[in-house]
């Protein structure tokens, strides 16, 4: 076959270029560790997602000192959880699956990007060095409101990150001279034990108690306040644990029975008299 000299040179140069491209890409994957989504995870039926230990409750879990796992569901037209919060300087593995059609889980402006196919679980391990806030979008057309499907990824400074949950159960009303009780539950979903102080402010009083909550445990603290010290009327109260806050109002009355026929001294357990039950997720809301 007759090939012109220039053509031969061009052919050789082209092959060198191609091999060069392949070499740089290979270097990126092998030496720099830029890996792709693979087939490590077994399949999952979309109907079984709700019963799955990971996806039943979409969330972030701590699995190592600076290692976290995020279980995320994409469905028309939302991500669950809608906001994912992780600490800076951590390594997060995302497990993402779909409840219905093909979506994507794409952290805007980054290479954290995967297709989400029903039946499959996408896994991506990402290192977050600096605090930042990112948008998450679905970039695969998934139906007529595809353009509304978005979420958030907050990488917060390490010292501001925790996985604490605060829940307070308190009386709404007590008869004067009875004790008002505040049951405070502090849950710690991090691996390290949480040492903190639970504080209750009511009227002029401040009650404090130091607690240590072990990993994956919930510690309960009960504050008792003598309503006689508060006096008759409405009293605002606040329970604080680190950055978390719960508040409500306690009514101290002369004679409760006259007002609504309730038993006096009701502890409020399982009561139907509107216990002030609150529960705040681990998300900070700054």
């Amino acid at each position: 076959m007759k090939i012109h000299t220039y053509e031969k040179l061009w052919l050789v140069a082209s092959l060198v270029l191609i091999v060069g491209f392949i070499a740089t890409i290979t270097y990126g994957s092998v030496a720099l560790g830029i890996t792709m989504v693979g087939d490590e995870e077994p399949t999952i039926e979309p109907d079984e997602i709700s019963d799955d230990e990971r996806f039943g409750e979409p969330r972030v879990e701590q699995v190592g000192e600076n290692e976290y796992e995020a279980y995320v569901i994409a469905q028309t037209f939302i991500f669950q959880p809608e906001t994912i919060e992780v600490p800076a300087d951590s390594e997060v593995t995302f497990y993402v699956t779909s409840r219905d059609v093909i979506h994507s889980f794409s952290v805007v402006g980054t290479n954290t990007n995967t297709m989400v196919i029903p039946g499959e679980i996408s896994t991506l391990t990402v290192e977050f060095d600096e605090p930042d806030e990112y948008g998450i979008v679905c970039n695969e057309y998934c139906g007529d409101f595809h353009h509304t499907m978005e979420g958030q990824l907050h990488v917060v400074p390490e010292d501001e990150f925790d996985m604490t949950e605060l829940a307070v159960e308190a009386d709404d009303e007590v008869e004067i001279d009875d004790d008002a009780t505040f049951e405070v539950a502090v849950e710690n979903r991090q691996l390290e034990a949480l040492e903190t102080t639970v504080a209750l402010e009511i009227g002029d009083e401040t009650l404090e108690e130091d607690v240590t909550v072990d990993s994956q445990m919930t510690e309960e603290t009960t504050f008792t306040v003598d309503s006689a010290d508060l006096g008759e009327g409405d009293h605002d109260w606040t329970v604080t644990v680190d950055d978390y806050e719960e508040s409500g109002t306690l009514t101290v009355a002369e004679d409760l029975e006259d007002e609504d026929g309730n038993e006096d001294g009701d502890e409020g357990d399982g009561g139907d008299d509107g216990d002030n039950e609150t529960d705040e997720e681990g998300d900070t809301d700054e």
Partner: protein
Amino acid sequence: MSNTFVDAYPKQARIIRQAFLTSFIALAIGAFFGLIQALHRTNILRAIESPTYYTVLTGHGVFLVITFTIFFLVGVYQWAVTESLERGPVDMRFTWGWYGLMLTGTMLAAFAILAGFTDAIDVSADVLFTFYAPLQGHPIFYIGLVVFVVGTWLAGADWFRTWLAWKGENPGKRIPLPTFMVLTTMIMWYISSIGVAVAILAFILPWSIGIVESINPTLTRTLFWYFGHPVVYFWLLPAYLMWYILLPKLSGGRLFSDPLARVVFILFILLSTPVGIHHQYLDPGIAEGFKYIAMTNTMFLLLPSLLTAFTVVASMEHGARQRGGKGYFGWLKALPWREPAFTGMALAGMVFAFGGFTGIVNAGMNINYLVHNSLWVPGHIHTQVGTAVALTFMAGSYWLIPQLTGNRLVGRGIALFQVVLWFVGIVIMTNAMYRGGLIGMPRRTAEPEYEGFNYEVAAGSVGELNAQVALGGTLLFVSTMIFLALMILTLFNGESEPIDNRTIPAPLSGPEDSPPVLDNLKLWVAIAAVLVVLAYVIPLASIVSRGGLFGPDIGPFPVFVEPVSLLIETVLVSIGW
């Protein structure tokens, strides 16, 4: 006395005109939809509700990359076969038969798509050109696609039949280059379109009718991309044919090398198909190793395009020197820049070279994660099929339509303006798309700006990017309309002088310089089959063993039943969206 194609082959000219007519109607509708999208997603003019955007987008994709391109392909290929074998098909009724099938298929799919605009008919197919299950369109949409593809298969069979008849009359002769290009393209098409045929016939169609309950979305998606990458070469190769056959002649010279042209087309048979997984770098359920293999194959697919760049530029230089061009680069001035057919193809080639490099970025699997499904990708598509192919087709039409009608081209100066306008429009639109993609703006969305975050634009602003997309899109629409107006005027033009001579000069280095093995099509089919088996058997087996043939109980998500979308709307409103 003119010597045009229509004088020599009036019957063949008639069917080619018909194919071009169908192609141009699709171009008109697709371009109009493109304009709506460019103005909608940039929030400049919203003539439709955002959910309707996806009906428009489906139409834009299907009408342009299936109907416009492939009807043009069959027209050009019928011309190339007839001209180079110097004979018509064995039986013209068969030829009209495949054209009729392609048209029927198009009408069915078009009906399913366009019915999405009205609630009066309970039919729609807002599933986009890729129709990823479990999104489900109306069965008519899938039936239409299948009928269309069968039509193209028969077109290929017709050209093979014509060639075999010619071979009988011309024993021992080398296959003429244009026919060689047609046959190799069709071999590639047969190998690759099996993927989409299996995806539709075995899985998606029975599932859309309700015969089977569940589907394996990874499997149908993989079968789609088995076809989805070669289909881009199915759009591109008719443009290549025109660059190899027409462009050297238009430059005033002849093709540099016939043997290299054959090698290029053989490389496309071999390498077009075993690369489809490079569209699935981000898919779960496919091992990284298969993705790596697809990446290396894809990189080697650069070779035929790099060889084409050499041959085409060398042919142009040869032509320019024949016209008196001098110097290292001075010859560029001697090219016929006032000729719209030449200038259009040359500009298309330039854009293609640029788009090729963005394609390398896409092919690089680790960089792909940054741009996958971002606006970068339609930027790439619009430089490639939207310009390398579309602009070459339009420019080629300025030369071909007079040959097919016997009518002189109307408005040569306007035609020159039209191709330059396209070039300007595409540069403006795609540069903004590429940049938008790099900041993470998604493709395929009615509203790329979100409530919860803002894009971080290094230079410029989102408003400026939007303005460029809208402006570029508008220029492209205007350019398309000018092109179509000139085509209509030429069709009804009574004048027949002057029309370029239709003879194609012989290449500088002819087929005698290449070994006859290049023409051994069976050999290339066999090697291509081996490569396809190597690249696909294990991934497909793995996908089936993971999710089963019909998937892990994945039901449909119909986008054609109106109540479902109403329900979703209600739910969305109730949860405060």
